[in-house]
């Protein structure tokens, strides 16, 4: 006979305000099988938990129901308390009367009535709970880091220094990400590459880090502690073992006019190229779309058009026939750090985003975006660090900077703030003023968001010391007028239209997740918001975890982040992963499916629907060893407990522990007010 204890939490006023907790406790007291029903101000407090432990002992309870917040919040807490009281933790369940009741209703009477109903339901369930044993599974102490930008680099280094093996996968030929393209960084104006490149080298040389550059994640199987990652090493056309990075091949390449991705299209590169001098690894890659040899091949020309790079290579490292290769790595945890891309301002936009045709990006050569300006300002850039405008290579006397291009503009499909633009525009104005004396920097802004250590001071400095002119308002349109660009906007503080003749315009465009993030998220089965940013498990308390166990997120793929944020997140993920690796065995909730082999008819419908291939075949033989039948058996280690098998089984011969038919059946009945 069940002896259930019910504990109703006021959660201070959170539940108490709209739910009469005492009444709930009273009502449940008379519920069949309930031997103890009390309410208390804070059940999650130590005294509250003590209350539970005490009643378990005194009333020798067979089950505990805590009517409080969401199980996602405190289920673990109270199960631990129940365990402390000598009860199997899985005999304790939570009735969610806060998120699902007190917080969403005002009518106290109705809310209380509902809370009672919720309570009854869970009581009925718990009556049918059975003691379960936590499953222990081994942990592979290797981590997969996806993305070799600053976040990925930081995470990899912290993990490696913490003693974990790291697999770092970067889709570009070199690690470094966007940070390697930046000239200086706010708010300290220290040279980006100077602080980044040492870390890149460190990654390359670290004994615990295995780097797959020019590679992408193909698929991920398994579960926390036991993932199997398949990685596609894209055909580099250069043998990484043989190449010594002398660069002879790039010297002789006949294709020299290809827009360089690293220089954001402002510089040129060859078809066989190293993205930038400090690239890690310093191994060239052949861009097959632009290589004369491959282009000819694609056209069906059999004669080998060009092989200069191969001839130039003393190591014989150039390998035109190289193909994509697949390697599988077993890892225990995954860190996603794929970073961002800039909103493309041109006319044709992906996934329904509208462009900013009125700003003439792509048609007016001297209208560029923030990253391009970084390259112009960078000593390693196409102009060697001089600010020269693309059209005629003259130093611009007036530059107009436009903030919030794409950001905070629901009409253009993005309502969020990209966080970094205010600061980097301030930085740009300084860099410009420092390099072009007497130059005029005008900024059109909506608000200046300078929250961060030294940020406000930094943006003030741009205005007060370097004399950047800030105009609050938007630009309606721009057009080329001879050598200058007419910028027509509105000064909302002065309340009058303004027209500026600019030599160059820099658009601070929105930060968006990398293309293909959805596909990646689906491979990892982590959720993402409507913009494609990866969802964190909890906005405040679990900022670097995803809602898939063992998969973590760092940097701008979670939401717009500046470098300090990205690095902080990266270190946080490392801490999380190392924490995970600190155990030899992982404890898993025993919510797994079990087959009733007497009743199983062996139709294996369950096998077809199981997402994890956890269903195995088992032969049932009699004493003499005669095969009686073949039935399904669930591998508890592999099963993740979705329960699709049970809903599929026609004879209900497989049960998901913790969510058995009997439990749900009784919940359904309880809701209808009938208790059996």
């Amino acid at each position, binding site marked *: 006979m069940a002896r259930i204890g019910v504990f109703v939490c006021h959660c201070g006023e959170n539940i108490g305000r709209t739910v009469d907790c005492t009444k709930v406790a009273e009502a449940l007291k008379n519920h069949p099988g309930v031997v103890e029903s009390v309410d208390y101000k804070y059940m999650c407090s130590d005294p509250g938990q003590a209350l539970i432990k005490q009643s378990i002992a005194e009333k020798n309870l067979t089950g505990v129901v805590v009517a409080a917040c969401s199980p996602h919040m405190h289920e673990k807490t109270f199960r631990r308390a129940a365990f402390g009281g000598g009860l199997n933790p899985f005999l304790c369940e939570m009735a969610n009367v806060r998120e699902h009741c007190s917080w969403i209703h005002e009518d106290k009477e109705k809310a209380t009535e509902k809370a009672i109903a919720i309570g009854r339901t869970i009581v009925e369930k718990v009556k049918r709970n059975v003691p379960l044993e936590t499953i222990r599974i081994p942990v592979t102490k290797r981590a997969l880091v996806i993305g070799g930008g600053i976040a990925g680099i930081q995470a990899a280094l912290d993990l490696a220094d913490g003693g974990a093996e790291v697999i770092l996968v970067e889709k570009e030929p070199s690690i470094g990400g966007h940070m390697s393209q930046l000239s200086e960084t706010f708010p300290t104006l220290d040279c980006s590459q100077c602080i980044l490149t040492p870390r890149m080298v460190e990654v390359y040389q670290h004994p615990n880090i295995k780097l797959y550059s020019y590679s992408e994640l193909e698929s991920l199987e398994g579960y926390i502690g036991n993932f199997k990652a398949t990685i596609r090493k894209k055909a580099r056309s250069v043998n990484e073992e043989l190449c010594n990075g002398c660069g002879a091949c790039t010297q002789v390449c006949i294709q020299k006019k290809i827009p360089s991705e690293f220089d954001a299209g402002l510089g040129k590169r060859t078809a066989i190229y190293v993205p930038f001098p400090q690239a890690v690894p310093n191994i060239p890659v052949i861009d097959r779309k632009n290589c004369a040899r491959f282009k000819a091949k694609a056209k069906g020309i059999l004669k080998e058009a060009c092989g200069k790079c191969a001839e130039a290579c003393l190591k014989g490292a150039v390998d035109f026939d190289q193909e994509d290769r697949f390697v599988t790595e077993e890892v225990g945890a995954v860190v996603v750090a794929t970073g961002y891309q800039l909103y493309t301002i041109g006319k044709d936009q992906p996934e329904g985003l509208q462009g900013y045709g009125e700003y003439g990006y792509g*048609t007016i050569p001297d209208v560029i975006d923030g990253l391009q300006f970084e390259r112009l300002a960078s000593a390693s850039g196409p102009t060697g660090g001089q600010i020269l405008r693309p059209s005629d290579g003259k130093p611009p006397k007036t530059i107009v900077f436009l903030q919030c291009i794409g950001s905070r503009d629901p009409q253009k499909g993005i309502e969020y703030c990209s966080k970094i633009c205010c600061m980097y525009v301030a930085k740009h104005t300084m860099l410009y003023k420092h390099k072009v004396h007497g130059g005029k920097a005008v900024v059109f802004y909506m608000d200046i968001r300078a929250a961060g250590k030294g940020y406000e001071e930094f943006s003030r400095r741009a205005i007060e010391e370097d004399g950047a002119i800030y105009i609050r308002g938007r630009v309606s349109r721009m057009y080329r007028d001879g050598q200058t660009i007419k910028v027509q906007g509105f000064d909302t503080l002065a309340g009058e239209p303004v027209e500026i003749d600019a030599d160059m315009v820099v658009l601070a465009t929105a930060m968006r997740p990398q293309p293909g993030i959805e596909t990646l998220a689906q491979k990892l089965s982590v959720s993402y918001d409507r913009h494609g940013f990866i969802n964190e498990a909890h906005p405040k308390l679990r900022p670097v975890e995803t809602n898939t166990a063992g998969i973590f997120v760092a940097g701008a793929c979670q939401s717009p982040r500046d470098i300090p944020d990205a690095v902080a997140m990266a270190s946080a993920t490392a801490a999380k992963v190392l924490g995970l690796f600190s155990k030899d065995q992982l404890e898993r909730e025993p919510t797994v499916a079990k087959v009733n082999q007497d009743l199983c008819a062996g139709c294996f419908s369950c096998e077809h629907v199981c997402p994890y291939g956890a269903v195995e075949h088992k032969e049932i033989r009699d004493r003499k060893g005669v095969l009686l039948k073949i039935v399904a058996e669930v591998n508890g280690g592999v099963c993740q407990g979705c329960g699709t098998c049970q809903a599929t089984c026609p004879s209900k011969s497989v049960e998901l522990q913790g969510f058995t038919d009997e439990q749900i059946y009784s919940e359904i009945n309880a809701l209808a007010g009938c208790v059996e």
Partner: protein
Amino acid sequence: MKIGYYPGCSLHGTARELDESLRAVSAALGVHLQEVEDWSCCGATSGHATDHLLSVALAARNLALAEAQGMDQVLAPCAACFSRLASARHEARNDAEIREKLPELLGLPFTNTVAVRNLVDLLRGLAPEIKAKATKPLQGMKVACYYGCLLVRPPEVADFDDPEQPTSMEEVVKAAGGTPVTWNHRMDCCGGAFSLSRTGSVIRLGRAILDDARTAGADAIAVACPMCHSNLDFRQSAMALRGEAPMPIFFLTELVGLALGLEPKALGIRRHFVSAAPLLERQCAAGKGVS
């Protein structure tokens, strides 16, 4: 194709050539225009400045009539008329209160089912036919397409082209064999109804437009709005400072008409203040079609 036709006051006055050229072109393209019986003012200029409900009702009356006369779409060639009629539809669609009031106000049933088409929108739809039937394409004529303020704005009302980077007029001109030039002032204000009250402004604005078109190397400007036409055409002499070459202002329909080989006379081109004759002669002399 059959389509309701709402000329509006301008096409019976200052912009008769638009009416004439439109009818001629429609006939040539097999579009049957059915004039809305008993049509009345669209509520432009003064109407919508005085009273909102009135302005909606004035326009809605014509739509209601079209509805009663079994039309499913109405062509409003004047940009202002188009804007008013389209706004009325928009209001009736989104403002329940107004929707309720309209029927009794109009004394007519109004279900807001009649689509309002713009001249440019219509011609863009017919571009393939124009291309096919263009016996005298405007080879090489450099045309600056001038949208003005109303044609594609506000987007939720006009709703047929990009409000910032429209392309529809250019498409039509291309179909007619012309070469659209890229220029900057194609969506600026021409001064509109201030032609009489603040002529100075109109001249200043118009001059900027003409100058920009010239710098872009245009032979002519194409418009799709009677107001724009009268401002740029009628006031052009006043805009000239240092004897710039006159810039013919065509209605889009006239250009299409020329391409289709219709007589300039039939298109009412002779009604222009800035004569198009020199240009057309040049074209013809250069053996570039167009008599």
